């Protein structure tokens, strides 16, 4: 594992960038536990101060230190993304594998179900749910709901991968070697899916984070929990741009862009590395 990281670090500039960036992000998140202030408390510092050596990103109109609040916010957003993505990809992978490998009626049934999920207009649905549940929609619950709405497309992709893998000659060899369906899928096919899974997991996180920001900016999620989205919301609510409190609105946005780009770079370089074709090329260059 470490060898892979060291290796990618040396040879792939995207990985270098993304890895360093993510380390910074993780560092910030860890820092959040040492914050002097509780991020939900109001009026703990003087209001509307621009960035300075004491308040690195300045303070906002609610009397909170933006830097320390941001560290918590990034952590929450990422956590939400992770929860949503893990749930959605697990469901998607399971459904895709079963559907693709077994075929027949099971496939048709599961495809119908996934098709129904694909056509659901997610943003309107989420807006509706937010209206209905307003404060009771904690951000973890939001993560779970997002996860349950995002599995269908990935499921389809995994299914189509399995469909093509199923017809490969080595699948027949595996079957004639006596391997049962479970073994075939996990030992023969899964290794081909891992690169997609890695990139997919991160893209799932990105979607969930973006959804959260969207809902928060519209004022529809739990606004008391500090997340990137809610920070943007409050900045808007207090008309930060009109009052020229540029630091308040730019901090979460820049943090979001930074994190998202970092995640993307990591996923692209990891998935290229793990891609069976690249691995084969590497093996043949080595051997």
């Amino acid at each position, binding site marked *: 594992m470490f060898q892979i990281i060291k*290796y990618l670090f*040396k040879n792939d500039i995207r990985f270098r960038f993304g890895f360093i960036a993510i380390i910074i992000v993780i560092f910030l998140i860890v820092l959040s536990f040492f914050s002097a202030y509780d991020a939900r408390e109001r009026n703990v510092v003087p209001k509307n101060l621009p960035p300075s050596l004491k308040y690195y990103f300045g303070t906002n109109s609610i009397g909170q230190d933006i830097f320390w609040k941001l560290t918590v916010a990034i952590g929450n957003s990422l956590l939400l993304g992770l929860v949503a993505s893990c749930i959605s990809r697990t469901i998607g992978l399971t459904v895709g594998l079963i559907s693709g490998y077994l075929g027949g009626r099971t496939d048709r049934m599961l495809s119908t179900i996934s098709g129904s999920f694909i056509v659901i207009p997610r943003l309107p649905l989420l807006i509706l749910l937010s209206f209905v549940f307003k404060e009771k929609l904690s951000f973890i619950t939001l993560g779970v709901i997002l996860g349950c709405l995002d599995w269908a497309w990935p499921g389809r992709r995994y299914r189509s991968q399995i469909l093509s893998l199923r017809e490969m000659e080595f699948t027949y060899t595996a079957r004639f070697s006596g391997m049962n369906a479970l073994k075939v899928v996990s030992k023969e096919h899964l290794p081909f899916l891992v690169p997609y899974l890695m990139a997919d997991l991160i893209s799932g996180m990105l979607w969930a984070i973006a959804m959260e920001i969207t809902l928060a900016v519209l004022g529809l999620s739990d606004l008391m929990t500090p997340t990137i989205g809610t920070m943007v919301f409050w900045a808007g609510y207090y008309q930060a741009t009109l009052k020229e409190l540029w630091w308040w609105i730019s901090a979460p946005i820049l943090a979001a862009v930074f994190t998202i780009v970092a995640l993307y770079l990591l996923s692209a370089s990891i998935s290229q590395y793990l891609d069976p074709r*690249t691995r084969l*090329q*590497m093996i*043949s*260059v*080595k051997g």
Partner: protein
Amino acid sequence: MAVIDVRELTAHYILGLYGRKKEISAVDNVSFGINKNEILGIAGESGCGKTTLIKVLFGMVKLPLIVLGGSVTYNFGNSSIDLLSSEASDADSIGWQDVSYIPQGSMSVLNPVRRIESTFRDFIETNLPPEEKDEYERLVKDQLFILGLPFEVLKSYPHQLSGGMRQRVIIALATVLKPRVIFADEPSSALDVVAQRGVIQLLKKIQREQQNIMVLVSHDMGIHANLTDRVAIMYAGNIVEEARTKDIFKGALHPYTKYLIGSLPKVGDKLYKASVPGPPPPLANPPKGCRFHPRCPHALDICRGDPPMFVDAGDGHKVACSFVAKEMGL
């Protein structure tokens, strides 16, 4: 004088990925000449370098392939053009009217959404000077007629034709401008036996009609026996033997060639046939000295260290083998 003169040609593939490098010695110190009105066969198995050799002869040298040394000279009439020289204009002056190339798997090259006649028209119009553009119809009809291909293929789409017919259409296309040299890389290997015969007979017909040079690369010795005048046997990037086709089949000298010819099954013959022993050599790290020595039953000490001695057995029969040299008292 040879029309195409190849001297000491060496070409390698340099591969590198994620910091690891590998160099594949695909063509190593190859020298031979091709004469007027001749069909030369280049025979060898997968990985022997024959496709790379053809690419270099045709001038298609693109990374990761690099030419490390040697020359390829085309002697057309009065001009001598060194294909690999650094002056780009030299190589460009050789166009599709002079040299034509039929790549492997070329049946799939036809644009599936256009009729055959459109493909022909495009090709001819691109390669002829503007004054002669209208010649296209006459050229195509003549070509199809001479080659015995039905005119109805012109109005068809590629998928409607059988594999063998598609391949023949490609060959007709590649030779419609009557090139002086035709390179064909495994022109029939993807085809059925009967279609293959049609393609090979077509090539023979073209060469007789146009009296040009044909260089045929194939791993199928039966095709060489049927079509070529001379054969060069390649092994691991080297030419190990070169002779008239008849002499290769009836009087091969190099141990590898002997094994190769001896292992070919024939209908009507159930006598035991043996394969060449041992595994083929890795081109990334070829054996020192003679590249065949690990598998050769006649390997001498000198074979393990030095490159094989070159023997001219007369009548255009050349062998690169120290053992043969010893046997002949050289």
